[in-house]
């Protein structure tokens, strides 16, 4: 055990630090900020799901907001009409959304990438209207209010001894989201490193070659859709809990785009990517909206124009910059920087010893 721990590569320790950081975070920030970070973590889950579909299997989806809506409404309806405990409804919502995603993946198989993007986009467009139809079940336009749960006594006590303040429901929801995020990131990590991950990557890089190697193309592609929707369903369910309210306008088309932007910015086909992408995609519109008007040196007229276009403009500009300077996303950028640094350090040592460093391997 000790030996295994000692031999662990540095990135394992990085994971430990990140996990410890996220566990400790709510004890040093306000309850409100905890609720914002909870939503960022929820975005991370949804983007992880999208990442499996887009980054790993190479299928484009512009409709993940719709899967989130399904998850959110499943939970909200179960809580509201059937008085279930919210925590119990999260796995139900996830599995149901996963099944729907799997079924959606079956016809989607027959579509070329461009048409698949259009089909999923259509899904995102119709979902808000579709939700309004069975008004008795979904609350129609009024939506459904979700009561935010109080933290259980044990969690509350531990939190109180650590910080000296009472745990709020926002902080409790943060920990629920963190738990789900950790679990699902761990699952995704396992998925990518084993047979399904390799199969999906093979399909992405060359369908014919993959088929020739005996990979069940149809099976794996629909599986990717199902798993991806499972993630989106979990995220949706948690999102309903975090915002305390689900309604058709909570899941506009732009949500799906936001998720895709997050996935691309973070870095496709990587595990830490969705986390970075989520922090980016969640906080950028909020911050850019509030930062511009607070700057007194920007003239009023320009500030108000910028403010109205805030999220769209900052998304656009940053996306272009990232595509130019970091085509593999933030994770790609960090990895490249680390490798260059490493090479230079190692190179210096090796040169002294008279060795020439080997070419770095591409990932």
């Amino acid at each position, binding site marked *: 055990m*000790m030996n295994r*721990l*000692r031999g662990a590569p540095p990135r394992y*320790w990085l994971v*430990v*630090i990140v996990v*410890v*950081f996220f566990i*400790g*975070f709510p*004890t*040093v*920030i*306000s*309850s*409100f*900020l905890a*609720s*914002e970070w909870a*939503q960022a973590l929820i975005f991370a889950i949804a983007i992880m799901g999208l990442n499996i579909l887009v980054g790993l299997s190479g299928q484009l989806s512009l409709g993940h907001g719709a899967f989130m809506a399904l998850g959110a409404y499943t939970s909200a309806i179960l809580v509201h009409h059937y008085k279930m405990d919210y925590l119990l409804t999260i796995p139900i919502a996830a599995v149901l959304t996963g099944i729907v995603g799997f079924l959606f993946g079956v016809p989607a198989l027959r579509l070329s990438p461009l048409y698949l993007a259009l089909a999923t986009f259509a899904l995102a*467009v*119709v979902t*808000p*209207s579709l939700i*309004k139809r069975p008004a008795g079940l979904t609350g*129609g*336009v*009024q*939506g459904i*209010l979700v009561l935010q749960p109080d933290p259980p006594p044990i969690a509350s006590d531990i939190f109180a001894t*650590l*910080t*000296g*303040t*009472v745990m*709020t429901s*926002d902080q409790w929801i943060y920990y629920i989201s963190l738990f789900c995020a950790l679990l699902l990131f761990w699952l995704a990590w396992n998925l990518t490193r084993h047979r399904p991950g390799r199969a999906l990557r093979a399909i992405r890089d060359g369908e014919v070659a993959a088929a020739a190697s005996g990979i069940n193309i149809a099976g794996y592609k629909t599986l990717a859709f199902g798993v991806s929707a499972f993630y989106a369903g979990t995220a949706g369910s948690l*999102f309903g809990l975090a*915002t*305390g*309210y689900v*309604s*058709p*306008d*909570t899941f*506009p088309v*732009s949500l799906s785009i936001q998720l895709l932007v997050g996935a691309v910015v973070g870095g496709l086909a990587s595990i830490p990517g969705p986390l970075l992408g989520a922090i980016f995609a969640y906080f950028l*519109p*909020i911050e850019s*909206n*509030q930062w511009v008007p607070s700057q007194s040196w920007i003239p*009023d*007229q320009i500030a*108000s124009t910028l*403010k*109205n*276009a*805030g*999220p*769209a403009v900052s998304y656009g500009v940053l996306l272009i910059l990232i595509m130019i300077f970091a085509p593999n996303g933030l994770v790609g950028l960090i990895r490249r920087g680390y490798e260059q640094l490493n090479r230079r350090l190692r190179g210096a040592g090796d040169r002294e010893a008279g060795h020439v460093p080997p070419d770095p391997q591409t990932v």
Partner: protein
Amino acid sequence: MSRLVRRLAAAAAFLVALAACGGGTNTGSQTDVGITADSILLGNTIAQSGPAASYGTIGNAELAYFNYVNGQGGVNGRKIKFKILDDGYNPAQTKTLTKQLVEQDKVFAMFSGLGTQAQLSVRDYLKSKNVPQLFVATGATTWGKDFSSNTMSLGWQPPYQGEARIYAKDVLQNHPNAKIGVLYQNDDYGQDYLKGLTDGLGDKASLIVDKESYDVTAASTQAQLTKIKAAGADTLFLFSTPGLTIKSLVIVTGLHWEPTIYLNSVSNPQAYMGLAAKAGAALKNVTSVGYLKDPTDPQWANDTGMKLYKTVIASCSTCKPDDGFNLYGVAVAYTMVTVLKKAGSNPTRQNVMNIAANQLDDNSNPFVLPGVKVQTTSDDHFPIMQEEVITWAGTGWKLSGTLIDERGTIK
């Protein structure tokens, strides 16, 4: 071994550092937050980007009025600070931003938040935090009707049902043998209107020969309007949102149909009428209602209220003075100031809420039509319930008839 110990020590040190930075978050004083000896902080969420961005100017107009009042010395010596945040018409954003305003910025009250869904999404939250949600910018009937179970929330503008009842009265008076066709949006907004019309017609509800609905996402109402025309209607009600109302007016002309048209107040700003005319709508026999002075109506050119409005709005560089939404913003801000003034030396959240919801009695608002009273009592929580019928006169709306009062009709 020593490397492991060092790593564990580093992790532990990190944890300790985290804990050390912690401590007093979340001070929980519930009353009189956001108010000091010389300031009152109000918060607002509104759509300044996204599909409903044209409403965004309301917040800026309100800010302009508060700045004007501050320039006059403020309210009982206190300056009003007003923080506007853009929610893009997405209720999830509204929830987050409202939390930010309440928990981080520590506002005294929320004022004039926009959008029915958006404001409903924070109604329970604000009540649980004991923060007043005053004069929301939505005409849904629920704000006044369900006040008894939502005691921290209040609307301002006339509810959609009240407006539709006024149309019903006008029809019964002027077109007693009308054959009514209704086009409505298939959501709570359209249904609110339809219910008001049906209730208002009472036992004459059989005058309605056809009702057709469309979905918010619909691109055209051609099919519905053709059906209504075929059903023999000679009076058309449009309970739709501005975009589709403009289209519908054009379609009606395209069908060579000349019904009497009743247009809901949401769609009647002059700018929209201009767009409809430009797109080829005939705009014959068009009726609507209003309760605010129209900044483009020449009859108010020398009105003191209108002059004040022009002065106030001149300080907002991005507000167009002719935009009726700005006049709305200034008018509702006037009521907010009235309430704060009345709270006098006891400006607690509870007292302010009590005055707004039960004791408003103000006929001095210079921005509403003469005679319109902003009023609430212990069993009536709709601040404005009077509107006047207006008819389209080619270039602007003309007041026709008298104020119709629907107070007390919605239970």
